[in-house]
Structure formats: C-alpha cells, structure tokens
C-alpha cells in the first residue's frame, strides 16, 4: 500500500483515496509538432526499475493533482510536491540522492 502526503491538504492519503495519473513532467507536443515529438508525447513512457516520478490526484479528498517521487522496487516514497512545477524541486532530488546515489530519470539526476 502506497501512502502519499497530499501537498495541498496535508493528509496522509493511502492509494485507495487517490487516482493515478501516469508519468510526471511530460511535455505536451500538439499541432505543428514533429511526428517524432508527438509520438513521444502520446506513447513513449518510462518504465524504470527504481526511482520514478508520477502524477496522482487526491480524488477522494481535496481533489488536487500533485506529483510524487517513489521507488518502483520497494515502493518507498521519496516525497510529494505540487503540480505547478516543471521538474522535481531540489529538495526532492537531494532526498533521492541520499537514498539512491547516482540516480537518474529522463533528463533529471
């Protein structure tokens, strides 16, 4: 069972109170984009063994979307942060570095 702290209402919500929203920090490529970029935006997803970034929604709670950083092997949660950010905050990245030295995910490390 995953338990995330919702960064909007502060509740420790277990995953039955949340809805998964897939991979985090996707850049939208819309009309006018190259076929390659559009394909990447629509279909290409990370499937890491280890550090991962996801979007979740506190659907049975305050209703807000947020980001979560966790480990797909151990289900350890490194932290959660608000949706209004284009990349993981430094605090979260530092926290991951302590527990998973040398980690990287897409262009982040």
């Amino acid at each position, binding site marked *: 069972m995953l338990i995330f702290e919702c960064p*909007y*209402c*502060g*509740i420790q*919500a*277990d995953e*039955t*109170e949340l809805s998964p929203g897939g991979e985090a920090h996707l850049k939208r490529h819309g009309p006018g984009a190259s076929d390659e970029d559009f394909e990447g935006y629509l279909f290409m997803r990370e499937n890491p063994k280890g550090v991962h970034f996801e979007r979740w929604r506190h*659907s*049975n*709670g*305050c*209703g*807000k979307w947020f980001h979560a950083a966790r480990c797909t092997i151990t289900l350890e949660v490194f932290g959660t942060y608000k949706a209004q950010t284009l990349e993981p905050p430094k605090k979260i990245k530092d926290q991951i570095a302590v527990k998973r030295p040398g980690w990287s995910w897409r262009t982040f490390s």
Partner: protein
Amino acid sequence: MSEPQTSLFPQFNGYVTVSCESDMGMIIMRGSVTAKGLGAALGTSLPKERKIVEGKEMQIAWMSPDELMVLCRKEHVADLITEVEGSLSTQHALVADVSDARAIFKLKGANVREVVAKLAPVDMAPGQFGSGEMRRTRFGQIAGAFWMTGEDELNIVCFRSVAEYMYKQLCVSATQGSELDLWT
C-alpha cells in the same frame, strides 16, 4: 420541479443510530478561501486547513485550498449567497447552492468512530481525529466528508445520487453484533 424530500431514509437503530437529514442548506464557494470580506459577509472567522468552524447558525468547512462549504438552515441559503457574492464581486469566485445535490447522515452512539473506521481509510483513533476537523475521504466506493460534533456524534455528507449506497453501508457497519469495541 420535484418537491424537496425531508427524510430520504428511516432511522436505523444499530449499535450506533444512523439517520438522514436532507433538509440542510449547503453552499459551496470556490476561489480564495482567505478572501477579504468573506469572513465579514459570513459573520465569522474562516476555518484553517482541514477545519470546520461554528458560526452564527451555520458551520463553515475548509474543503480544499480553494474551496469552502457553508452548512446552514435551508431558508437562509438565498440571503447568504447574496451577501457572499457581494463580498466577492471583484474576485474570480464561484458561489453555488448545492443543498439539493447532497445528503447528510448523522451517526449517534458511543462507537461512532469505529463505524466510520470500517468504511473509510482514516485513522479514527481518539487523538488522531476529533471535533473541529473536517475530513474528505471515501466511504467504500464513494466520496464523502465527515466531521464530529462530540465524541458520540458524527456527521457525514455525500452526493445525494449515492445517498442510498451510503445509507446501506452505514447500516451494515452499525449492525448490532458487529461491534469491535476498539476505543470504548
């Protein structure tokens, strides 16, 4: 227009009693929950994060960083909306009467905590949750919010479209003989 129903379900007498109060007024407000003038329009101080406060013939609950809910007598709803809308006239905000979209259940008895604990993923142990707090969560498969108005009294609000599901699961949870006596 359909006539408002004042009692959707009969009172259930389990080891905790379950009754439905559907004639309550409810107003939802979206926008800045700390908006200037809002407290004055409501005549009370506004609730902090996850709290519910008692006002003059009303209760005000914090629902999310941009949402407040007012519970009041149904006949006060129209006037309150006019006042609140006036205080928010220069802001991007929404005020809506949702009374007919909701149902309220009242649980009474010494074991109200465990009747909720059986249905919702919330730590109901004394000290972990208590009066003055508003908790939005799920009950079984549906969304609901609840608050306590004493150690043996608890209120639950949910969408009226799923009120029957809520009523039935509360009755099952409160059935005589299913006591856990966790905290009594």
